[in-house]
């Protein structure tokens, strides 16, 4: 008995030992994004053509480049700190938008069934069968690039994921005796959905949203890398990576530091997501 308890505690403890430091990484990045104007040592957009491509730790014209400077002599550290704002806000807003849209449609399909189900779920299949990057390029070509459009593109490509999970969850929850009782008590279908089904599927949706968040960070970086995302001079990790690619032999730091940040952010979000799904799924506990 105690043996099992210790092993169980050990397992939970092990999980936290891994997740703990990485959640600190996430917190640090979020704080950096929020307090960017106070934390960044320099203006991320002020150019200094005499201080171009300086390696980390050098000083030029009274500015200390802790992580070096880019091809226009802008402080890389400041650009990374401001870039966290773009990455996190794009990821957060697109997750919220696609999550709300996808969950709503998925729940409607799973509860109302019939033609609503057919239309919504086949639409989701169609969206899932189009390569995301192609859809993104077409959308940006039509709408033009920019912060809001990146969010729209991401929401447009990712809602089917939520819709499918919400659909499956709703199907199983809708057959639960408590939903039947709520209907027998005279609850209307919006009330059944919002009060009795949504709270019981929200945990699953939260897990999907966390895992999607990491994916959205990468997606935004990818779009910016291709020049389809946030437009210069707004600092973005993806765009900085893209520039750094040209200088990777002469100025390795331009691509390396945003890459490390991207890596740490996505890894920590994914680890937290895994942990969350383990925690919320009684079978794996």
């Amino acid at each position, binding site marked *: 008995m105690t043996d099992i308890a210790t092993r169980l505690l050990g397992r939970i403890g092990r999980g936290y030992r891994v997740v703990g430091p990485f959640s600190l990484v996430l917190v640090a990045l979020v704080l950096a994004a929020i307090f960017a104007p106070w934390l960044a040592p320099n203006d991320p957009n002020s150019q200094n053509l005499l201080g171009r491509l300086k390696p980390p730790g050098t000083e030029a014209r009274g500015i200390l480049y802790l992580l070096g400077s880019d091809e226009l002599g802008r402080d890389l550290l400041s650009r990374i700190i401001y870039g966290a704002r773009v990455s996190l806000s794009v990821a957060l807003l697109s997750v919220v938008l696609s999550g709300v849209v996808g969950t709503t449609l998925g729940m409607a399909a799973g509860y109302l069934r019939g033609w609503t189900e057919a239309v919504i779920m086949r639409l989701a299949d169609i969206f899932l069968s189009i390569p995301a990057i192609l859809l993104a390029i077409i959308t940006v070509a039509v709408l033009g690039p920019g912060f809001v459009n990146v969010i729209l593109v991401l929401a447009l490509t990712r809602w089917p994921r939520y819709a499918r999970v919400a659909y499956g969850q709703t199907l199983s929850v809708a057959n*639960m*005796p*408590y939903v*039947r*009782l*709520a*209907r*027998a*008590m*005279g*609850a*209307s279908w919006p*009330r059944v959905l919002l*009060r*009795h089904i949504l*709270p*019981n599927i929200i945990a699953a949706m939260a897990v999907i949203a966390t895992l999607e968040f990491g994916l959205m960070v990468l997606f935004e970086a990818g779009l910016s890398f291709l020049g389809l995302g946030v437009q210069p001079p707004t600092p973005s990790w993806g765009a900085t990576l893209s520039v750094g690619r040209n200088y990777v032999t002469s100025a390795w730091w331009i691509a390396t530091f945003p890459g490390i940040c991207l890596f740490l952010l996505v890894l920590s979000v994914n680890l937290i997501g895994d942990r969350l799904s383990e925690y919320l799924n009684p079978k794996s506990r």
Partner: protein
Amino acid sequence: MTEPTLQITGLQVQVGPHKVIDGVDITVQPGQIVALVGESGSGKSLTALSVMGLLGGKLRHAGGTISLSGKQVDHTTEAAMRALRGQQVSMIFQEPVASLNPLLSVGAQVGESLVAHGKADARTAWSRAIDMLRDVGIPEPEKRARQLPSQLSGGMCQRVMIASALIARPELLIADEPTTALDVTIQAQILELMRQLRERTGTAILFITHDLGVVAALADRVCVMYGGRIVEQADVDDLFDAPAHPYTRMLLATIPRLDSPRKKPLFSIPGTVPDHDDWPQGCRFRTRCPLASDHCLQSPPLEPKAPGHLAACWHSDQVAGMIDHDR
């Protein structure tokens, strides 16, 4: 005479081309407890769900009328049905724990039908819910109301479900095997509670069960269902004393008796209920009935055999002597 609380006439329910309920008539008078008895698959629960307008999936209402207190129920519009549910007619189910939303406090769920129908705001509903919890015998209702279903026992959850069904003072409560998942002592308590609530509020109850012991303890009148039809209908004492349908007689014979000889095998009805797409022509119990004759190829009508005692059998007069050798 007052209008019956529930009058079902010629109810038919279909799955595709098959009739799973085939002409059911049930009348429940105000304050009466009517038991609906039968094996699994005989159509008891479907009859109840038809009254609630909650037939789902491929099931559809194919004929017959349902009237509540003299007013015919309009099954075609969901809005009209919804207005009745929880207000005029409520339903409780088996699996009391699973029938409560695991994430909502018990008090909120008891008040649900008041809030869902806009009869009360959340605060009023909450205090009414606490009163109702007290009425169904839950100790410390203020404390319990804030708890989640998982913090309550099965019997408590059934009391909570009864409270939520009766909070709007419906004229009819449909109870679909409410005590099946409970152990016998709790079962007795719940039955006693339902009897008390009937005395106090005058709510009529349509009680669905396959447990004849429960029927004897609770019901005023009994309807026996087989194969989607009512085969016998009588006051509870008449039915137990002088069953007029072989199926009822055999059901009664399946109850183990303390005074039967030791090591004698328990009685069971041979065979199983046929599927609804495979019912025999004529009397549907024909294939399992020891009294069956060629006459049974024609459907027997449900007709009076004694005052207030209806049965659908050509051989009612032979029922009394059919299993006497083992009693």
